[in-house]
């Protein structure tokens, strides 16, 4: 029993959960309005796009790579889809718009996949390159104007709510259907990771490429799938971002990648690959969203936001790395 407790305490998930709880306690003491349904539904809404991106990013980390281009994929897929829909068929129904954006995302992800899986280039450098290629292409050839006259069905989607209303205390809340998209992504990813051979292959790949190869896993195909899947998720996140913000802004999203990676590594996914959990990632997202939206509530000025996120990354990854180093040293 004690061993189990020790194990639980040593996990990143526990650490992040404790920090979140502490944050909420301090926040509700300093501002009684913090712990209300309104704040909660606001935070939930803010974590949809970040959450979907983080799930994709986690998959890449598990496979032993790193991706910094997914924000560019997301914004490109969103903007190209809105442009396409507005020029060809403005009344395009929203499921088709979404499918289109997911398709664009998967296509861009496949470009990453070619460089990484076929040519075997280092993932950080490839995705740094494609980040600027995708964004440069988007702003040069597709357009650089913000579009606020979105296709009507996209606006319609953003108004569809699972639940909305006012509590007895007078707090307004609204849960949009985009939340269902996040839930769907979580379920699908959990299924792939834990119930399919493909998922086992992704973990194996992150653990050791050579061992995976000798087990008979098609390393290239697995890697290729990972980058296409991440691209598709980014396309979904992008179009959700556009429809929820009721604006297609080609300058948005890029720059968010560090926060997403921060959320994922805080949740315990390891950069060397082979390890990562969805629970941890979602907790990491929750913490980052809290820091981004409510830092001021616990008395830290918002100018300290990036110091806080950076320090969280270093602490959240430094502690386990230090423990592992010491364990390795003890083992000789």
């Amino acid at each position: 029993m004690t061993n189990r407790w020790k194990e639980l305490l040593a996990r990143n998930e526990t650490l992040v959960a404790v920090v979140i709880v502490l944050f909420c306690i301090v926040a509700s003491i300093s501002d009684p309005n913090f712990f209300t349904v309104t704040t909660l539904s606001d935070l939930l809404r803010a974590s949809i796009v970040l959450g979907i991106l983080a799930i994709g990013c986690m998959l890449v980390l598990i496979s032993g790579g790193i991706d910094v281009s997914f924000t560019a994929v997301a914004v490109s897929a969103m903007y190209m889809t809105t442009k396409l829909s507005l020029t060809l068929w403005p009344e395009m129904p929203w499921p088709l718009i979404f499918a289109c954006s997911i398709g664009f995302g998967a296509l861009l992800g496949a470009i990453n996949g070619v460089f990484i899986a076929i040519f075997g280039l280092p993932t950080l450098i490839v995705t740094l390159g494609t980040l600027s290629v995708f964004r440069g292409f988007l702003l040069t050839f597709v357009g650089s104007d913000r579009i606020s006259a979105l296709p009507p069905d996209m606006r319609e989607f953003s108004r569809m709510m699972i639940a909305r209303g006012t509590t007895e205390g007078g707090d307004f809340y609204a849960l949009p259907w985009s939340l269902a998209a996040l839930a769907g992504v979580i379920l699908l990813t959990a299924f792939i990771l834990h119930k399919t051979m493909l998922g086992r292959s992704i973990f194996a790949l992150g653990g050791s490429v050579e061992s995976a190869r000798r087990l008979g896993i098609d390393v290239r195909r697995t890697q290729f799938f990972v980058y296409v899947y991440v691209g598709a998720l980014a396309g979904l996140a992008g179009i959700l971002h556009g429809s929820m913000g009721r604006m297609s802004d080609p300058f948005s999203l890029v720059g968010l990648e560090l926060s997403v990676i921060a959320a994922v590594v805080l949740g315990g996914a390891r950069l060397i690959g082979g390890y990562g959990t969805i629970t941890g990632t979602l907790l990491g997202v929750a913490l980052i969203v809290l820091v981004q939206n409510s830092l001021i509530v616990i008395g830290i000025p918002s100018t300290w936001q990036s110091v806080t996120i950076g320090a969280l990354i270093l602490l959240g990854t430094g502690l386990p790395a230090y423990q592992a180093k010491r364990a390795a040293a003890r083992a000789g």
Partner: protein
Amino acid sequence: MSGSGPRTEQTLTQAPEFRLAIIAVLVFVLMAVLSPDRFLSAQNMTSMAFQFPEFAILALAMTITMTTGGIDLSVVGVANLSAVIAATILTSLAGPEAAGAVAFLWLAVALGASLAVGAAAGFFNGVLVTRLGLPPILATLGSGLVFTGFAVAMTGGSAVMGFPDIVSVIGNATIWVIPVPLILFAILTLGLHILLTRTGFGLRVMMYGANPLAALYAAIDIDRILMRVYVIAGMFSAVAGMVIMSRANSAKADYGSSYLLLAVLIAVLGGVNPYGGYGRVVGVVLAVLSMQFLSSGLNMLQVSNFARELIWGGLLLLVMVINTTDWARLSARRKPAKTG
């Protein structure tokens, strides 16, 4: 990350630096042909010589960390933090009216402070990598956010300005006809070249980059080597920060954010192996020149900043594909064993 195989002795024409020299010349000729009267003008030559040292120095910082198989994603953060601290000293302690010896003294203090900040930041990165065992990507990603964050917190996000006139010497003056930033770049380049090729330290850096485990068994004090590498990278970044501050005549937390990609691009273009173990300063210099020719040329052809981003990124991918793909093996239809 796996190291690449040992490099055997090559003839001059096979060296990546030779290919790079050809690229640099080709780009120069191409731009000269496309826009002869403007690209070849003396004015353009001088302005190019003023422009490239700031990102070229960052690329040198990137180079030394890459030769150990690491990377420093915090270079821009360190440059801006050290610039903001130097700028704060110059504006609040010296003031814009300072002149003569007083101004010179404050400038020296500010420069010293910025170098100290760079060294401290590099030391911090080194501690994260060696003592805590963090992967360099994560360590410098996190610390870069922290450094930028401190700069934002100190300034509230706005630019610090109002320096004594003497500050502009670092970025805008010439000695005889040579721009001061170019002289700084030349000194640092030469210094790094000697350090990497003529000293025991440089040899150990390359050994560690080529094969960390072998270096460990060769009884090399790895922690000390890495610590020094990151401190040097931090101090180089601080120098770049001073040049940027002087040229912009202000300091701000988000200056030069596009320089990070550019620094990685230049190092990789310059033939530095991102897995460690190989990198020559002369390659980096050639890469810097090609990038600057390309950048100025595109500017004259009135290509937008976004298209330039596209071209830089595309170039990075192209060079990586050319440099690392074993074409003979691909055509032999055997599956290569390399992965990212």
